[in-house]
């Protein structure tokens, strides 16, 4: 998908939400309620966008297939949560902790990216995927048993902004922060991929040995890609921890990592616009639009141990549909569902057929 297309997509998303809020206001509905609902989803969507774009750098642009991105996210989130909670002076209004939590999360995640990146230099392809998965599972296991990090119960840092302002301001401020973070991620990664460094990274994806022969420093770029991707995931983690005011290992399971991979794959590996679109569509379909479906029960299975025919609500089949979609896309359109689609074409005058 052309890069500008996703700006159109995001603009239409905000226009849609604005429209819904306006309609609610005119119709005499509860605007505050609607704002809280949409505000929260837009904030979390921006966090997912940062995650999928940074994974896209590793998986899509550089071709280092990582299944462990949730680990970087987790490091960032826990580092930020621990900073806000434990940094002196502490308390409900730990502004110092809040401000420092962002750089600390980024540095912690980037350091872990370095830790993962260096040993993974020796691996490629599916072995790399398994090794990154192993790293993130080890991490989860260590956090699960760490007393200061709350073991499996999780960590609840105070939400500094919420405590200092009102509920509405909280959403408004995080809305700005999260989308600023997403915009920063897009901008930095887009400029990176347009620079000579970006071309070196793409060369590694296309043919590692050829790139090496042409003088691309494989060691440097692979580690660089891991560290950069991890840093942005760490930033997303810091936003998540501060906004959610609660982190637990359940938030960073393998399934979340798979979800991120699916976003990158459906968007078209290495295609930032496509990844953006896939992230937003998958997030909103899975978390918002699905809940609006009428509750229709469909028979899915016959099981005498459960008393005969098993019925399930049609919205519960989303996960099944989603996995079938992944298989079908890989089979039919391995370059990604959205690769090469150009939304800006809608706004251009159609060129003559011969193109001259």
């Amino acid at each position: 998908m052309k890069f500008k297309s996703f700006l159109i997509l995001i603009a239409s998303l905000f226009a849609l939400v604005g429209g819904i809020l306006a309609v609610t206001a005119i119709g005499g509905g509860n605007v505050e309620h609607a704002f809280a609902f949409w505000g929260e989803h837009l904030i979390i969507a921006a966090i997912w966008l940062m995650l999928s774009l940074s994974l896209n750098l590793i998986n899509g642009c550089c071709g280092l297939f990582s299944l462990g991105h949730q680990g970087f996210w987790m490091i960032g989130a826990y580092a930020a949560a621990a900073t806000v909670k434990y940094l002196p002076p502490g308390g409900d209004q730990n502004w110092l902790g809040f401000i420092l939590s962002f750089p600390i999360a980024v540095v912690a995640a980037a350091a872990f990216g370095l830790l993962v990146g260096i040993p993974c230099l020796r691996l490629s392809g599916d072995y790399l995927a398994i090794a990154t998965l192993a790293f993130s599972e080890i991490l989860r296991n260590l956090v699960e048993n760490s007393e200061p990090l709350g073991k499996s119960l999780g960590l609840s840092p105070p939400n500094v902004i919420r405590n200092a302002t009102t509920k509405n301001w909280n959403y408004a401020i995080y809305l700005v922060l999260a989308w600023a973070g997403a915009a920063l991620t897009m901008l930095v990664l887009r400029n990176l991929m347009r620079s000579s460094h970006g071309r070196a990274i793409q060369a590694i994806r296309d043919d590692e040995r050829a790139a090496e022969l042409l003088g691309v420093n494989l060691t440097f770029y692979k580690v660089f890609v891991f560290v950069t991707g991890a840093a942005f995931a760490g930033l997303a983690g810091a936003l998540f921890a501060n906004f959610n005011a609660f982190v637990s290992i359940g938030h960073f399971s393998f399934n979340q990592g798979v979800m991120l991979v699916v976003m990158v794959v459906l968007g078209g590996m290495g295609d930032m616009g496509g990844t953006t679109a896939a992230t937003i569509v998958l997030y909103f379909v899975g978390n918002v639009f699905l809940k609006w479906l009428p509750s229709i029960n469909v028979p899915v299975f016959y099981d005498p141990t459960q008393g005969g025919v098993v019925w399930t609500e049609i919205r519960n089949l989303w996960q099944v549909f989603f996995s079938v979609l992944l298989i079908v896309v890989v089979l039919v359109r391995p370059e990604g569902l959205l690769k090469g689609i150009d939304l800006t074409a809608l706004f251009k005058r159609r060129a003559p057929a011969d193109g001259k």
Partner: protein
Amino acid sequence: MIDFFTFLLIGLTVGCIYALIAVGYTMVYGIIKLINFAHGEFYMVGAFVGYYVLVLGFGAQIGGRELGLIPLLVATLAAGVATGVLAVIVERLVYRPLRKSGRIVALLAALGVSLFLQNAGQQTVGAKDRPFPNTMTLQRYPRFKLVAGDVKAGEVARRDISVVYSVPLEGGRLTLVENLAQRGNTISAESVEKLDEILRNAAREGVPAAIYAYPAVTVSNKDGIILIALALITLLLYLLVQHSRFGRAMRAVSHDFEAAELMGINVDRVIAGTFFIGAFVAGIGGTLGGGMYYSKLSPLMGLMFGLKAFVAAVIGGIGSIPGALVGGLALGIAEALVYGYVSFLYADAFTFGILILMLLVKPSGLMGKPSSDKL
């Protein structure tokens, strides 16, 4: 030292289950260089097929009569065949069209199949854990028969003592084991009373009851079944791979795909057969391991267990069948020792730590061939 042997035995049994799954990973990898992420889900499907055969075919009920060996055998074979057929279908629909694309694309497809089986399972059989039907009561061997007079209140028990007796149930009977005393503890008066009551009831009902003393290290009947199953499968795999036409074709395809095709080997059939055998063994592992041994079935049971079996395959050297067996046993024993002597909390970190170490230090594994292409 007694602890050590106990841990070793537990590890051996769990290792056998890992080995049953690792065989499929390694066979598929050996022949088409694909890490079949969905293989752990084949283990899950196998466990559920075994469950349904026992419940629907043999009328098993939770807490009901013991089914015995023959129903278990039927369920295990049915699970193997059903899982094998599923694997062949998956191979035909998903992996075969992708054979010429890159390894990452195939890995993604495998991830998709794995997700599909997990999610479809959660929607159909439900996400809750289910216990496996009671095929046999856990009994320990070797054991020495005692008579009622040997158990006296106030004496210190030199060995673990228990009474094994049956109660009649609709359509059969249920064997129960009541522990009377532990080695080194004093035998209490209540234990002796309980024993007397059990013996009296058994005599009245006309069912067998016996008192046994156990040595420090014992093997259970379930351990035994799993060990025997692995030994049998190892033997059959050896005969199949080394001494059959199909095995020769498989080795040829694994050695050089294109040359084998040129020599007139039906590569598609060989690959489908490999998938069938790998999943057949995993299905058996599902019914015996996930079902009979752990007795905890859920659609997500294959995820972690499958990953650990993959670690076992890497330890042994992925692509090598003896390697998968050795790797499975080694991982099971290592894990049991960590559980026993260190902490069960860090078992996952330990297992995945081994994986990373292995991939970095000796990616060809204990028994694999060093590969020429860079990993």
